[in-house]
């Protein structure tokens, strides 16, 4: 059994409510931080913990906090990114729905470290029932003296507000989120300036994912060093994975980052193997934006080693033979799934969600979707495959925000690893409407050259 830090108390009856949460040791980190630590000491502890952003990019959180500009007389803000809209990702929802107080606790401790007197939770519009849960938790915390003026008699003030999003994936991008929070159209801003200097209402702002903020609680309770002991190398602590697709036990799992991908998929503690006795074909390990991997490269790296479930493990081999940890949305595909159709579905998503500001993303996503539709429906040409590769290369890196890259990578990775399947669709236009390509050689052991 791995160690649980966030979900340890998830199954305690009534943990959603303040009394139970407090009885189980909740809000200790606030007491500790506000009464016995300076804000900089809290930041220092977070730095020591090695915690990396859980929203997708994996940027070291302590470092992000220390970049926050602190001009005299200008308010600072903490914004919690609860927009969770990446296909395959649903870990933040679980936390907010079942243990809302861990988020509120993390917000208080983090805001104290940042010197913020207002914090916002920007929550995905479609999570329509969760704002009530959060607002109840905020009210409970306030009634018990954890929020409002002069918290615990320390002179520190904090208010937390919940804002529902307008229902767009792009509003999860931190600067689009800030625009939306200000009541504007959710277009990503052109950076620089970064939010750490000019964020919400043009004031210094830190935007962090729900899970990142929640992880601050065990870090302050047990110390940064203790947190850093879990996991491997620069992947410290535990990570929430939302596992879905053709597995026996879809759900949210907390892993210490030192287990293998194989263990995660096949052990009974986690996904419990592939559903219906089928075989594993492919997997997107970190949410829809990260590269898809065929079974063989998923379980073993190109060097023939076990692939591990942590930042470095999943990205081993770079884009050529690896993928990314991303947001932890673990999507598993069995042998009956069609990669072309799957890639088309993702392309359709990104076309629909592009904000439309930059020409490469606005026009390129629509173009890729149309070509993929044609390939999926047996109307494609062989040249379409290279055309797709070219289009995605013209989008990648040339846009304002990473949504352009997120739209480009899945297409590039699918063609990189599953080109035969795309070609099969072109060469068998009738058959591809009747059946799928199947597992083919995608689970075969890869040839690993042995050094002389």
């Amino acid at each position: 059994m791995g160690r649980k830090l966030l979900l340890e108390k998830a199954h305690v009856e009534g943990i959603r409510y303040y009394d139970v949460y407090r009885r189980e040791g909740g809000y200790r980190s606030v007491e500790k931080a506000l009464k016995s630590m300076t804000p900089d000491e809290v930041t220092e502890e977070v730095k020591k913990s090695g915690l990396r952003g859980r929203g997708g990019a994996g940027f070291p959180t302590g470092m992000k906090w220390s970049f926050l500009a602190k001009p005299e007389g200008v308010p600072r803000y903490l914004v919690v990114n609860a927009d969770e809209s990446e296909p395959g990702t649903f870990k933040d929802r679980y936390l907010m729905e079942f243990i809302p107080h861990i988020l509120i606790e993390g917000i208080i401790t983090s805001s104290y470290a940042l010197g913020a007197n207002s914090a916002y939770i920007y929550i995905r519009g479609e999570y329509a029932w969760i704002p009530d849960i959060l607002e109840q938790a905020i009210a409970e915390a306030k009634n018990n003296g954890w929020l409002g003026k002069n918290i615990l008699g320390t002179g520190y003030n904090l208010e937390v507000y919940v804002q529902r999003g307008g229902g767009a994936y792009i509003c999860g991008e931190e600067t689009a989120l800030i625009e939306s929070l200000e009541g504007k159209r959710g277009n990503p801003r052109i950076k620089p300036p970064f939010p750490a200097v000019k964020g919400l209402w043009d004031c210094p702002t830190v935007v962090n994912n729900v899970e990142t903020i929640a992880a601050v609680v065990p870090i302050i309770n047990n110390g940064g060093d203790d947190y850093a002991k879990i996991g491997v190398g620069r992947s410290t602590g535990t990570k929430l994975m939302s596992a879905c697709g053709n597995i026996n036990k879809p759900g949210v799992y907390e892993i210490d980052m030192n287990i293998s991908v194989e263990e995660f998929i096949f052990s009974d503690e986690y996904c419990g193997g592939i559903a219906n006795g089928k075989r594993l074909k492919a997997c997107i390990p970190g949410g829809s934006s990260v590269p898809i991997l065929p079974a063989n490269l998923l379980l073993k790296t190109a060097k023939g080693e076990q692939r591990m479930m942590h930042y470095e493990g999943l990205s081993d081999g770079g884009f050529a033979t690896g993928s990314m940890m991303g947001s932890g949305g673990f999507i598993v595909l069995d042998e009956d799934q069609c990669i072309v159709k799957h890639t088309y579905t993702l392309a359709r998503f990104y076309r629909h969600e592009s904000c439309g500001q930059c020409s490469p993303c606005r026009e390129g996503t629509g173009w890729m979707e149309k070509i993929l539709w044609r390939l999926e429906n047996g109307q494609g040409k062989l040249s379409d495959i290279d055309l797709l590769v070219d289009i995605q290369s013209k989008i990648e890196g040339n846009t304002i925000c990473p949504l352009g890259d997120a739209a480009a990578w899945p297409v590039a990775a699918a063609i990189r690893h599953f080109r035969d399947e795309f070609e099969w669709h072109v060469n068998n236009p009738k058959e591809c409407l009747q059946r799928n390509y199947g597992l083919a050689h995608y689970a075969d052991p890869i040839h690993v050259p042995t050094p002389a």
Partner: protein
Amino acid sequence: MSDQLLKVTIDNITVEVPNGTTILQAARKIGGDVTPPAMCFYTPLKGSGGKCRTCLVEVSKGSEKDPRPMPKLVASCRTTVMDGMEIKSITSQRVLDARAGVVEFLLLNHPLDCPICDQAGECHLQDLSYEHGKNGTRYEFQRRTFKKRDLGQYIQLHMTRCILCYRCVFTADQVSNKRVHGVLDRGDHAEIATYIEQNLNNDFIGNVIDVCPVGALTDKTFRFKNRVWFTKPMTAHRDCDKCCGEVTLWMRGDEVFRVTARKDEWGEIKTSEKTGNTGWICNDCRFDKKKASDWTIEGLAPIDRHSVIGQGKYKGLKKPEETIEKVLDGRKPRLLMNIHSVSEVNNPEIELSEINGPATSAVFKKNNHE
């Protein structure tokens, strides 16, 4: 320190510019081919730029202090220069590829209806595709079209032609006193529109026509009246209590076909001589003062960027002159032979309309005829 000049090198040409200058502005100072095309940035509009991605350049050296290159191409219109920065524009294959890509993207769904578009001849998308595009497209799908929306008595919106540069949105925010139009929806279905059908009739709203780089917003009072290259741009002014009254009249003979603000070589509205601010003009001047007698005409407007309105067409016209005398040190050329008298085809008696078939030399042979 702040008024010290910074050295930047673009495509191996070094210029010195004040702190806060963008790469694009530094490149414009050099001018010519190294200057990246800019479809969305517009100097007088705060916050504009960064969207179209035509102006991407490669920063091969960040600065004297931190010489590391920037990993991604950057939007030159929104990136300020550092001392010692080195930039590659047309000397970078990556930039040329990305630029060609952006042009292809911008034209992907464009209707290419230039023959019936009022903007043709002064359209920046035409210039862009001519200068940086490839011939032909690889797009094989139906192009996107939009439902027509009415923007009132002055302004025609052809959303299908729009490149979503957002300039008109910034203009309405910053120049008119109320914005009633904006971008609705997102992605490739995003469109410029008013929320509920509304008229754009704010005093200064006509300026959106001038900032629109394409024919998405055109002047209804000029619609289909003339091709811009047949009209003659004249600099003129009038005393106006609403705006600077400094305009360009687009005339044919004594008739005023169109009134626009004065633009510089980059297509941006110039600073007013009178006020020292951007020379935005009001709707009265633009749409209602259509008689030459409304204006004090100063003279021909210099136009030098756009191909068809063309440099030298109206100003600085260079007539070809005889050079033979100059070459021969003042001697007159000597007639060696009069081609008319020896030509076999110089035969006025032959009625061309009566020839059966094509007129070949055989037809003109004298004896043949006799």
